[in-house]
């Protein structure tokens, strides 16, 4: 059965320029996720988890290389080359790395639950992308390779979670799910706040600031390039912020 998101995926991946830009972004996200996993390996006191996290980090680095290689190949194949075009990141579905997680603040169980959900979501997304990339075999092959690893990551995180928190694995996963939901809300809220801030500041820039801009430009015209003496008073007090 086709996923209800298939149409969105198809739309998002249809244009080769956007496809290339998205793959390059995936490369960044995978590399970032890999660095977070390295940190997790450095922080944990559990030797088995350390090895698994390091292996996982190497996988993420390999995925980053795969995505980058395919993205660059796609750009090279474009009629005008180009720089990847507008990225429209927030429109593009995809893995979100570890959501800027502060690994040091997480216990092993919380981290495993979070990783499990992230990998599960990524596996679902990547399977969806591969399904709509029928004509682009090379990109589909990249997703299939990555998907194979994601399945392992999804499995090991769940098994290890049951090992380190046998009684509370399900609770941990639900907590992680709620935290992902909360972070998604925060992302949306901060995006909206940023948008509102930009609108207000833009209005301010055009409606309130013109007289000040005029004064600033007039002052700039009086400045001559070259040396400006430093007033001796400036070598004095450290109490001023200005």
């Amino acid at each position, binding site marked *: 059965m086709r996923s209800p998101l298939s149409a969105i995926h198809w739309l998002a991946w249809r244009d080769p320029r956007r496809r290339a830009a998205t793959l390059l972004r995936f490369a960044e996200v995978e590399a970032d996720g890999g*660095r977070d996993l*390295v940190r997790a390996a*450095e922080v944990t006191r559990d030797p088995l988890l350390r090895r698994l996290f390091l292996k996982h980090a*190497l996988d993420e680095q390999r995925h980053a290389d795969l995505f980058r290689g395919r993205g660059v190949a796609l750009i090279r194949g474009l009629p005008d080359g180009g720089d990847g075009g507008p990225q429209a990141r927030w429109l593009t579905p995809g893995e979100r790395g570890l959501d800027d997680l502060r690994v040091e603040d997480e216990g092993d169980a919380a981290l495993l639950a979070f990783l499990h959900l992230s990998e599960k979501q990524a596996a679902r997304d990547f399977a969806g992308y591969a399904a709509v990339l029928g004509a682009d075999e090379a990109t589909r092959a990249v997703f299939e390779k990555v998907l194979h690893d994601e399945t392992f990551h999804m499995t090991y995180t769940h098994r290890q979670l049951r090992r380190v928190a046998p009684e509370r694995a399900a609770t941990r996963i639900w907590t992680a799910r709620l935290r992902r939901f909360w972070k998604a809300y925060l992302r949306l809220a901060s995006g909206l706040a940023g948008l509102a801030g930009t609108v207000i500041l833009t209005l301010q*820039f055009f409606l309130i600031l013109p007289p000040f801009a005029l004064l600033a430009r007039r002052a700039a015209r009086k400045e001559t390039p*070259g040396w400006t003496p*430093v007033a001796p008073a400036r*070598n004095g007090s*450290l109490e001023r*912020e200005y």
Partner: protein
Amino acid sequence: MNILGLSAHYHDSAAALLVDGQPVCAVQEERLSRRKNDAAFPLGAIEWCLDSAGLQPGDLDAVVFYERPMLKFERILTTALRAWPQGRSAYAHAVRNALGEKVWVRGLIQAHLGVPRRKILFTEHHQSHAAAAFLTAPTDAAAILTADGVGEWATLTVGRGRRPPGGATSLELLREVRWPHSLGMLYSTFTAFLGFPVNEGEYKVMGLASYGTPRFADAVRQVVRRTSDGAFALDLGFFEFHTTARRSYSRRFLDVFGPPRAAWDPIDLETEDGRRYADVAASVQLVLEEVLVDLAAALRRETGLADLCLGGGVALNGVANARILCESGFERVFVPPAPGDAGCALGAALYADRIHFAQPDRPFPDHPFWGPGIEAGELARIAAEDGLAVEALDEAAMLERTAQDLAAGRIVGWMQGAGEFGPRALGHRSILAAPHSAETRDRLNRDIKYREEFRPFAPVVPAELAHEYFELPPGGLRLARFMSGVFRVKPQWRAALAAVTHVDGTARLQALERGMAPRLHDLLMAYGRLSGAPVLLNTSFNLAGEPIVSRAVEGYSTFRRCGIDVLVADGVRTVKRTRATIEMEPEEAEA
């Protein structure tokens, strides 16, 4: 008197602690948070500094921030206003950015540390650079030149400092060049044009420059022209960094220098575009050197002083530093190990101590090792848990085994004592290798550092033997102390030092005095006895996109993920079974 210096919010935040005028510790936030170029308020660094010294925030006599945030905000606002109506996006970006946290530094420090308002002080950005350069240098009187992208308004300053025996220390900035005319921004704009990350990729431009010919030098001289008073000014028609946050160069810039390089596109020097990129890099490098040498020569004539202290991010340009030493007339040039913004944390604290509080001058320990130490036992435990062979060796055995490893072509992760403060690994957090073969360089680039082939690696050599291998001008040894100068490798040694000799026959060497890092010095001598030349390749112990390692566990995780063969932390040595893989037991692999 306990003084904490802080730098934060733009790139490379850091904290440094002085106790009774002497440095106790200094560390960049990135070394603790493990986020490269971490610009966040350096809470981790502050906590570590206070813990290391056994102090509470209440024990601090002053907390000194490295610049004046309101003055900086004034510059940002004024710049946006001057660009009206083009500056709309820059204005929105700057206001949101600054009002979020960056202008409320006093409140931030009060909130985090609980120190009273009167104890919070502010130096000017270039005062901090100047203090970091002059007050850490072993000189009684020196001219000072600082240059970076921008501080509050200043982008370049000249001044002089004096520390008369028994008298009051003075540090005076005389003149400045003001925003938007900036050598740092000039170089950063070319860095962005060449597809490298700004504030990080400037090294790459310098490395690439050696492959090009400066056929665009006249064009660059149009971009940065000399003013009648001996300073310089940018032709702003070539730039957009003062009107938008999106792009630093203008359409006119592209008309002169051609299309920019995309960040993802590898530089192929066999292609026309690849050669153009190298030629552009060579041109901006040449013009930067010309301007700096002229400014330094004029400063020498004006002050009559024999010593020059260089500070600011531009002082990381080792090729320019070497030309200043050779051509400006100064006899000695001092560049601190952390001349960039991180070093301002130390500079701000020193300025407050010596100038503001007029504390007596004290000689500054002439080394960069102010960061966290390592617990070798931690490495032994982790490696043993992972089933790797671990040996705890005494000093002599450790040196002998490591020298043998290096002579056998193995690549060694080397961690000793406290970590370096500043961007360079100077012998306590280094990756070491034999310097003889270009294959070693290629292997390091391919399997360990994952970086461009055109970037050179640096050699380290005992200072007393440096002249045998390198053409050092008078004063060169000092500049090479913290790897701050690029000098020529003697022709007869270039083939034997192929891994550290750049395409133009130069090397950014570190000349190591035994007193600064005795173990590494002894290792060099032991290696010299085996190989005939006590020179090693020394590169920072990190992977691409990661900060230099700090603790043993971070060295270990780096060792496990790349092609490093041997890891040595103090007296503990471990060896990998296979390269860059994580060996799992069958049941673990099924986990």
